[in-house]
């Protein structure tokens, strides 16, 4: 079979010096992607659902203490540890360089979540039919699946938005322009700390930022080659 190629390699750059830890991205992601709202009991069990979380670190000695924030989402690794462990190929690599998760294929072994060094995959331990009490069910997005119990899910870089942009671009016979599509988190970020773009296009804003000397990637030594770059330092870190 011929190999599927794509002009896109989606990636994201997160500027940690801009991140204020406000959590708007977390809320936007939850609202956009039909991520289940968890009950207190589920959160107590450590079974809360988030596709994007903000890790908080305290740095410095009292009284000069500062909070450092690190938004962690699926890193869409190019050598993803989650993919080879799936027995049913529900976790697969997309031609656009994304880690796909096919909900209707998933049988819920949770191998992928256990093998993910970033712990960004979340499992539907419960039937979340009750997670959207009326009238919250009106905000469910019809573009994406409402995941059922026993299915692993994760950040998709808002694949439904990418799909819609691709459809529009195809109608006009062109490629997606830089900045035309952005996930809910990047769109919401008030300090524009999150920049999404096509890494295969060296002129895109995300690709240019990713060449910054301030860049690093999470747990780079594991060799997972994430698509998400972080920027930090460059003389601007105060503590």
């Amino acid at each position: 079979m011929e190999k599927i190629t794509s002009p896109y390699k989606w990636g994201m750059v997160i500027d940690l010096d801009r991140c204020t830890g406000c959590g708007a991205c977390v809320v936007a992601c939850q609202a956009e992607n039909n991520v289940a709202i968890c009950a207190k009991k589920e959160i107590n069990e450590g079974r809360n659902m988030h596709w994007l979380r903000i890790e908080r670190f305290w740095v410095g000695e009292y009284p000069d203490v500062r909070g450092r924030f690190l938004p962690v989402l699926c890193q869409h690794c190019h050598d993803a540890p989650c993919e080879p462990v799936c027995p049913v190929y529900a976790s697969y690599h997309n031609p656009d360089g994304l880690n796909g998760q096919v909900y209707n294929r998933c049988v819920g072994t949770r191998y992928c979540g256990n093998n993910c060094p970033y712990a960004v995959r979340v499992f539907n331990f419960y039937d979340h039919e009750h997670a959207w009490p009326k009238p919250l069910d009106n905000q469910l997005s019809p573009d994406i699946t409402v995941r059922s119990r026993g299915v692993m899910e994760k950040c998709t870089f808002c694949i439904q938005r990418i799909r819609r942009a691709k459809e529009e671009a195809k109608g006009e016979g062109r490629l997606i322009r830089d900045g035309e599509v952005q996930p809910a988190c990047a769109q919401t970020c008030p300090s524009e700390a999150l920049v999404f773009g096509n890494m295969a296009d060296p002129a895109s804003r995300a690709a240019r930022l990713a060449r910054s000397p301030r860049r690093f990637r999470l747990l780079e030594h594991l060799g997972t080659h994430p698509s998400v770059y972080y920027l930090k330092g460059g003389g601007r870190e105060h503590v």
Partner: protein
Amino acid sequence: MKKTWLVGVLVVIMIGVVAAGLALVYFLPLDLRERSPLQPIDFSHKLHAGTNAIPCLFCHRSATRSPVAGIPAVADCRACHQFISPDAPEIRKLMGYWDRREPIPWVRGHALPDFVYFPHMMHIRAKLACSTCHGEVAAMERVTRTASLKMGWCLGCHRQHKASIDCWTCHI
């Protein structure tokens, strides 16, 4: 002694019957979904699309620019039927919905599961005829599903037309 032997045979037969039933369900293309659901109004596609040759997109006009083809609003039906045979019993039913300000509870015949994303506009843009998936609706009194709408059936066409067969094209 004889009775225990009989019970053993019965158990074996029962297990065999259950296994055969499961095998049948697995191997036969059993499709228990209603292919031709009864509609609240006896709407005839044969009369509208066939005899009167109204194009599909006249009523299902969202299909060119939206993932869902859409069902025309009751106001659209009424716009014509105020003047065209307003006294027929089925049209009276239609006007009843209009007067009560209720949507008509059409029964969906071509339903896809929640985990399938099917954009109508992409298929119209690819110059596929509506009848490729929906069958010859213009010859049907009541709409009947002719295609299986199974994944293999989708993929066959996608492969043939060199459309994307990436999982995330449809399962998002």
